């Protein structure tokens, strides 16, 4: 009997069509909160990318006649202590925040995942060494380590991203290591080893794709934490330097003029809150969609 003669059951057909990624996507889109998060974060990314085209005013242009004006039809979010349009600055601020979130998590992934793979796959002394360094880094609270690193590196957005990235690295080392230990003795890893694949190829080509879902969820939640950390560093004067707009430094200025211009404090904070909330909702949704057992 040839293969062509075999009857194809509808169940097999459905199974072939329904890949794990598609199933996860379907589960994700069923969750309204996750969809809200996805739409909101896409909107913020679009605003950040299209900022030069859509802002009504130059975000760093000052005007003495417009100092601390409340919201009006011409300045929807009002103006700040130097007469700059707050709406334009909030839109431009999305660039610094999203960039900081993405780049610092990319740094953390770039360092953390290979080290976690190495520790989990090699085991022994390498694992013990990497794990103890990870414990040491985790013992320093995230923001305090980021502040200390930013202080020694010098205040700038780039250094803030490096500081946040390094501070977020141990979470990824620990997560990757744990995931590797989970899948290390699975048949497909044993099979790859039996075929004579070198260790690095097994780690990157066979193990890594299978632990991606957990990393993706953690990366989404870490971007949220990194955005808050960047805003915190900028609030303290260790991140984006003036006059370039950033939500954190806008809040710092707002605190000084809270009695005269309370609107200055509303919008940048609301922007941070919405972005972080969206990422948290998306992260929770992704976790449920990618690993239904955790529901």
């Amino acid at each position, binding site marked *: 009997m040839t293969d062509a003669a075999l009857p194809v059951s509808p169940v097999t057909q459905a199974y072939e069509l329904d890949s794990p990624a598609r199933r996860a996507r379907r589960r994700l889109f069923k969750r309204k909160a996750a969809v809200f998060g996805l739409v909101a974060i896409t909107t913020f990314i679009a605003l950040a990318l299209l900022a030069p085209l859509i802002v009504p005013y130059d975000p760093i242009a000052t005007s003495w006649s417009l100092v601390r004006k409340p919201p009006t039809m011409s300045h929807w979010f009002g103006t700040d202590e130097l007469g700059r349009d707050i709406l334009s600055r909030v839109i431009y601020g999305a660039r610094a925040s999203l960039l900081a979130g993405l780049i610092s998590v990319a740094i953390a992934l770039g360092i953390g995942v290979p080290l976690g793979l190495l520790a989990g796959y090699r085991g022994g002394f390498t694992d013990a060494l990497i794990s*103890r*360094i990870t*414990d*040491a*880094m985790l*013992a*320093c*609270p*995230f*923001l*305090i*380590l980021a*502040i*200390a*690193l*930013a*202080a*020694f*590196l*010098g205040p700038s957005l780039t250094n803030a991203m490096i500081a946040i990235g390094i501070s977020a690295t141990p979470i990824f080392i620990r997560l990757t290591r744990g995931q590797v230990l989970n899948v290390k003795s699975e048949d497909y890893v044993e099979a790859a080893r039996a075929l004579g694949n070198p260790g690095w190829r097994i780690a990157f080509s066979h193990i890594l794709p299978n632990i991606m879902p957990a990393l993706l969820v953690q990366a989404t939640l870490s971007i*949220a934490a990194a955005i*808050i950390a960047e*805003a*915190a560093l900028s*609030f*303290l*004067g*260790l991140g984006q330097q003036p006059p370039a707009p950033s939500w*954190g430094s806008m*809040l710092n200025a*707002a*605190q000084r003029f*809270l*009695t005269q211009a*309370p609107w200055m*404090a509303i919008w*940048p*904070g609301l922007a*941070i*809150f919405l972005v*972080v*909330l969206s990422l*948290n*909702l998306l992260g929770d949704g992704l976790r449920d969609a990618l690993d239904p057992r955790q529901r």
Partner: protein
Amino acid sequence: MLNFLARRIAQIIPTLFFVSVLIFSLQQLLPGDPALVMAGEERDPAVIEQIRQQYKLDQPIPVQYVYWLKGVLTGNFGESLRSKMPVRELIAQKLPVTLQLGSMAILIAFLIGIPAGIVSAVKRGTVWDYGANLFALWGISTPNFWLGILMIFLFSIELGWLPASGYVPLSENWRASLAATIMPAFVLGNAISAILMRHTRSAMLQVLESDYVRTARAKGLSERSVILKHAMRNALTPIITLGALELGTLLSGAVLTEQIFSIPGFGKLIVDAVFNRDYAVVQGVVLVTATVYITLNLVADVAYILVNPRLRG
């Protein structure tokens, strides 16, 4: 138990060693001549030479580390370049302020987070559950420095109920002290209460489905007694130890909260040190924070075993 304790302490030693290496390495990140950078605007050769001497910068890096570690082990974290005070004294001065703020924040977090988590689990799928979940989402997504600013605007500027900034020691005037710290403590505890709520909810949901809760119900006990006496006691055991593990969130939060409310604590000390290029203070603060964190982790582990007889070997 003793075996466990010995094993846990043995694990801590290499971690503390790496913490010390990590914190010492921070000063290697300074661009150019570290003595010049640390001196900042100061160009007096005598001051630069004093910095070089203090940090043994003319010695090879491993030798510098050994000198630094020797000092740290004897409780000598160096001297503040600006105030000329020993870093140890500065930390001892500021720590009680942050401890008061932190304890109040943890208390607020427990008072909000645990009841909210229990109600959310018991009334699963109702408006109470959705409300508690929304509260948790709000808590973990709101930057505490924004919340602080909004609360100052509402309670200090608009309503005039509480002072916007400053600190009064508890021993001096307890009413004024509470008035000055209640708002920052709430700001600091807000995120932790959200985390506690989520953990309490999932622990309670798990316990409510267990056999002994079903047995308690089958015996005809009232729902109140089932939840308060049987379910809650077991669900809360891991949550109490979680409080210790949230110290990191607490200290990170304290940096910003103290800055916003001008509270002269541990967090403000590190920020002021960063801007004064007082690197010995920055290193001292991070080192003390990490050591306290590691110690509390150990205490939490031991407490968990003490309250959970099944884990006692």
